[in-house]
């Protein structure tokens, strides 16, 4: 900073500074130009993608779930629109305060609050979570008038699943529930993730689960341009959702009601099949539950009540519980005898009231025996001795070999999820079942018990019903099915569930006829006679009693055993005898003898099916049958007699 300078020097210096400033500006602008080039040319593609990602949002359009109808078009599951009160947590300052304030306008009970808390944990913050579902019009009006006080709270119309029949057929229809983590995994495994974007609910049991794909439909998608707030500004394209297909069942809901009513308070199961097609006419499991409880998420109290009940109402006994078939196994054994040639229909044995094997006595129920017993009589009076001998002659491999094609011990493939396999005992099965070598060995005495449907035998009601259907329709094994048509709601196209038999058994019609004649006489003069007294049609049947508890050596007296230890009562039946349109298996847990509680239920169901006669009262127990004690309890005395 020299002090004395000429104006020219000053000017020159100033101009140099201007030049420096100009160069700085030029360099800086060059830097900007380079930055623009980098962003707009070098990384253009990247940013273009980012801009597109920003811009386009995909909004799923959730399809309407298909309805479920019975064979006559009666609605079993449907959707209805209802208002829900929903809260978007991220937009609410104090949740508790808001809910308290809301509860002054609409009813919000403790259960709603608990469910809200639970859903809140599962949801993402920006999603709206329902606090109250199914508001009535008055509640909606009250809320709308005060809406300004509740930012982040809104009323939305949503579709709900409704099961108008309540408990009736609940084990068949099943229920839907909110998609949980496990469902999510299953959806991912199926590769169906995209289709469930936006869906809240999924089938959890019954047909709602097994026909989930058909019922759910195809999720549509709306391509929308969204702004920075995520709000849709403009719809660019729209692929509408495809409504789920309706299911038309083979089930007759009226018959189902009759069946369920016939059980009264008793526990048990009934499976009625049309033997001509394998279509399930009724499938009951008692006690049942109300599927409506599950739709919005079941409350803990309701859940505990269902889950902790000793009666296990959630258990589908018709397809999952396997019981020894007792004497209902005898017609099949008889058929095995004829088919294998071990017996002819006319061959008779002398029944002393017991069968001796390896130093043990296998007892008949009738003290002193039934005298001379041929195949026909063996079924009509349910003679154990005949079948002890027969089992011994057939051998366990022979029995298992004949029974397996009838479907015993394997899943029938019914279109309801959760079917059990049951147990068709055989040496191979025993080897697989037990670990210790001594347990794995098959004993001859065990074959004898199997012959009368006791021992390791365990079949589900649906297996028994389907096996019966097979022997009354001439040997065709069908896959039992509850759904008759899957109806495309858009096109109205009806896809039939195949009634083709999965196999045809090589059983001679004469042999089938012999067994069936005997079964008809069971209901005329045998163990089923009282239950079918006065029937204007002829029906075939067979009682059975599944042993629950082995009373070692002592005589079985129902009254002295605690109810839960009483034998299970079985009855299988078909009608009309000439051209059967229904074949059914009834099981009443701890119902005592087959004739006692199961047969009257079968009678009511067949009456309704053939005559349309309806009795809403539970089938009364046949007290005399109980006294008669005319059924099998042989397994009780499988101990060596002294």
């Amino acid at each position: 900073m020299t002090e004395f300078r000429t104006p020219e020097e000053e000017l020159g210096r100033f101009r140099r500074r201007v030049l420096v400033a100009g160069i700085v500006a030029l360099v800086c602008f060059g830097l900007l130009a380079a930055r623009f080039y980098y962003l707009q040319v070098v990384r253009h593609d990247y940013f273009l993608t980012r801009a597109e990602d920003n811009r386009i949002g995909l909004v799923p359009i959730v399809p309407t779930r298909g309805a479920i109808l019975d064979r006559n078009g009666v609605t079993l599951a449907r959707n209805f629109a209802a208002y829900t009160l929903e809260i978007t947590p991220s937009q609410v300052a104090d949740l508790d305060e808001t809910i308290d304030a809301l509860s002054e306008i609409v009813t919000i009970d403790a259960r709603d609050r608990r469910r809200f808390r639970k859903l809140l944990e599962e949801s993402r913050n920006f999603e709206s979570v329902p606090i109250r579902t199914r508001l009535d019009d008055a509640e909606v009006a009250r809320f709308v008038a005060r809406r300004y006080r509740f930012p982040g709270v809104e009323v939305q119309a949503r579709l709900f699943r409704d099961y108008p029949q309540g408990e009736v057929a609940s084990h068949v229809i099943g229920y839907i529930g909110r998609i949980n983590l496990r469902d999510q995994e299953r959806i991912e495994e199926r590769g169906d993730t995209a289709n469930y974007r936006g869906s809240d609910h999924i089938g959890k049991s019954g047909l709602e689960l097994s026909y989930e794909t058909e019922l759910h439909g195809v999720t549509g998608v709306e391509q929308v341009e969204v702004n920075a707030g995520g709000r849709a500004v403009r719809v660019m394209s729209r692929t509408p959702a495809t409504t789920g297909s309706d299911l038309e069942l083979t089930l007759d809901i009226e018959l189902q009601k009759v069946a369920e009513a016939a059980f009264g308070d008793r526990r048990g199961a009934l499976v009625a099949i049309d033997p001509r097609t394998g279509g399930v006419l009724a499938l009951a499991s008692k006690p049942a539950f109300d599927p409506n409880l599950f739709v919005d998420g079941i409350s803990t109290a309701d859940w505990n009540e269902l889950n902790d009940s000793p009666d296990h109402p959630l258990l589908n006994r018709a397809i999952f519980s396997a019981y020894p078939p007792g004497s209902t196994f005898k017609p099949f054994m008889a058929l095995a005898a004829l088919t294998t040639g071990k017996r002819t229909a006319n061959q008779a044995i002398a029944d002393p009231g017991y069968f001796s094997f390896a130093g043990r006595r296998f007892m008949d129920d009738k003290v002193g025996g039934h005298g001379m017993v041929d195949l026909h009589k063996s079924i009509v009076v349910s003679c154990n001795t005949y079948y002890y001998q027969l089992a011994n002659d057939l051998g366990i491999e022979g029995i298992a070999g004949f029974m397996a094609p009838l479907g015993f011990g394997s899943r029938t493939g019914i279109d309801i999820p959760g079917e059990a396999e049951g147990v068709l005992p055989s040496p191979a099965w025993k080897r697989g079942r037990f670990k210790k070598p001594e347990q794995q060995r098959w004993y001859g005495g065990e074959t004898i018990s199997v012959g009368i449907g006791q021992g390791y035998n365990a079949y589900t009601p649906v297996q028994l019903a389907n096996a019966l259907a097979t022997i009354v329709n001439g040997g065709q094994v069908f896959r039992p099915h509850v759904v008759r048509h899957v109806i495309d709601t858009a096109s109205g196209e009806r896809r039939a569930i195949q009634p083709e038999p999965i196999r045809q058994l090589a059983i001679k019609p004469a042999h089938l006829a012999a067994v069936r004649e005997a079964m008809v006489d069971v209901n005329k003069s045998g163990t089923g006679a009282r239950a079918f007294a006065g029937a204007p049609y002829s029906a075939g049947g067979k009682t059975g009693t599944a042993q629950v508890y082995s009373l070692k050596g002592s005589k079985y007296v129902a009254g002295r055993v605690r109810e839960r230890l009483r034998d299970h009562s079985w009855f299988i039946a078909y009608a009309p005898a000439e051209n059967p349109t229904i074949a059914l298996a009834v099981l009443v847990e701890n119902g005592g003898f087959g004739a006692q509680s199961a047969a009257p239920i079968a009678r009511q169901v067949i009456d309704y099916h053939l005559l349309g006669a309806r009795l809403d009262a539970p089938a009364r127990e046949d007290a005399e049958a109980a006294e008669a004690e005319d059924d099998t309890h042989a397994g009780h005395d499988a101990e060596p007699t002294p």
Partner: protein
Amino acid sequence: MTEPRFSPLRLLVAAIRPIDPILFGLLAVLLGYAFVLMHSASPERIASLLVNAGVALAAMWLAARLPPQRLLSLALPLYAAGVLLLIAVDLFGETSKGATRWLDIGITRIQPSEIMKIAMPLMLAWYFQQREGHIRLREFVVAGALLAVPVALILVQPDLGTSLLVAAAGFYVIFFAGLSWKLIVPVALVGVVGIGAIVGFGDQLCQPGVDWQVLREYQKHRVCTLLDPTQDPLGRGFHIIQSTIAIGSGGLLGKGWTEGTQTHLAFLPERHTDFIFSVLAEEFGLLGALLLLASYLLLLLRGFVIAAQAPSLATRLLAGSITMIFFTYAFVNMGMVSGILPVVGVPLPFISYGGTALVTLCLGIGILMSIQRSRVLAKG
């Protein structure tokens, strides 16, 4: 001398005379950009932009008509008034968005810091003019003090952006007045090393617990956001990220006028004000951006030429400073929206929406015109 007769033509010539055609042409181009971009970014503001532009052009014309001496004579009162107003703002100003920047004077709210953008270089140019031939270290110290007072007053509002702009405006005068390189270079070096350190050690410095002492938390936040916008993708970082996306997705030729998706779907924040450059870059691409850069460069070139040819020390300093202010606005704005400078509230000169800024900048153009004209008059 005969009494000039009333003639519309003569009146028009008289009105046009103070206007420098080159500066005006460049200003027209820039205002043209403003209208084109506003039509895309916020068409409902076109009318009020028209009004703003009218007022700004009137201010320019008035300033252009005044001889530089008259302008410089306003320096001291303007500066004094500005400082007093700033004190008033700090004492009882209106608070908005956490900063106290406005003073309600009944009819309108004024932002005294804006006045300072013009008053500051005027004041210093006037001061150096007074000391012409005796400019030594003492004079630079005084000039520094004159600069420091308003800058400090604006800084406490707090308004980092404006205080830096005012500081820059004053610094340019001091720089052109001949402040020794021995003083400039070390300070610049410290600055470069400081910025380098922030960039280099950004990760550590931006940890939540680290207190930066000099800067407020939000200012630290801005710097850190610049270093890594993804740290705050929905807050401050959102602006930078979305703006960079807008610019980058524009490509070479842009998406076309009013076709910018970032702009029209509200991803761009403040798209009609500070971020209007992103609209340009998105819709007109690199080509549009470079044309704008070129327009600014020509404007700077014209300003520097005027400065270099200015008749007196004060007019030189003033012209140089004003030109550098234009540069600073343009560079800082485009630098911040393209993600190489922190986000500070600096408008894109002549294009961003905002009446005060437009009037101030056009006043600057008017002053340049006045200086240019005084040179012509002096020659003649």
